[in-house]
């Protein structure tokens, strides 16, 4: 009986773990860049822009798909957004665009964020 339960639990865990797929990436908008540690401090402007002068240096994309009617929100993707921004060498993130859609009888939620990484001018 233990073996049956163990097998079932393993199968269910494997299926549940594969109920989410996520991707993130950055593309440089300038020819050269210096990466920062992936846990660096980066400012996030969900609306508006910083008052300091800046240069747009990277485009950042974070994509998450979840099934079983689980929804994704901005806070879920924020760590990945910051990580990509840091790796692209950005000081802050602006122009954040969120796109959330549900497919397959609303069971699957597709959540995508596109943002711009900026570097402050000294």
């Amino acid at each position: 009986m233990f073996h049956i339960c163990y097998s079932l639990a393993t199968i269910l865990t494997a299926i549940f773990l594969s109920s989410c797929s996520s991707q993130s990436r950055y593309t440089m908008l300038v020819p050269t860049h210096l990466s920062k540690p992936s846990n660096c401090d980066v400012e996030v402007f969900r609306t508006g822009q910083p008052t300091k002068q800046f240069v747009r240096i990277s485009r950042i994309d974070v994509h998450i798909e979840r099934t079983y009617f689980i929804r994704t929100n901005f806070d879920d993707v924020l760590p990945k957004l910051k990580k990509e921004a840091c790796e692209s060498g950005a000081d802050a993130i602006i122009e954040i665009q969120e796109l959330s859609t549900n497919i397959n009888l609303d069971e699957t939620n597709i959540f995508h964020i596109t943002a711009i990484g900026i570097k402050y001018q000294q």
Partner: protein
Amino acid sequence: MKIVLTAGTLLLPCIAILAGCSATPVKPGGSYQGEFREFPKSVDVVRQAAVDALAVKGFEITKSESFYVEGYRPRTWGFFCTPGGETSGIWLEQAGPSLTKAWISTAISSFGRLCQKDWTAAIVTEMENTLNSQK
């Protein structure tokens, strides 16, 4: 009990293999369906727009060549559906210094066919939005 364990052992690799299968997109034309567009931009700009459009729609870039970009949507498992598994291809041709032809198509794999989607129109719209915003 042995039967359950054996069935489980055999079933898991089968599911993994089927889930890993992907189809190969075919360039639209003749009997092959897809979309064709001409963009008044250089091929480099259109290629970047194609890569960005695939990323926005959840594709992992599997090929990025000078005149061809391909992406695969990873699968996820659900109650009703196993979405993902589609492969989209974008063929590019430089028709002039500022004119690029693009053919876009999506191939649907045999496993989980009902839950898959033809992403071609969505990719075209995303590319158009990106390229129009650069005017």
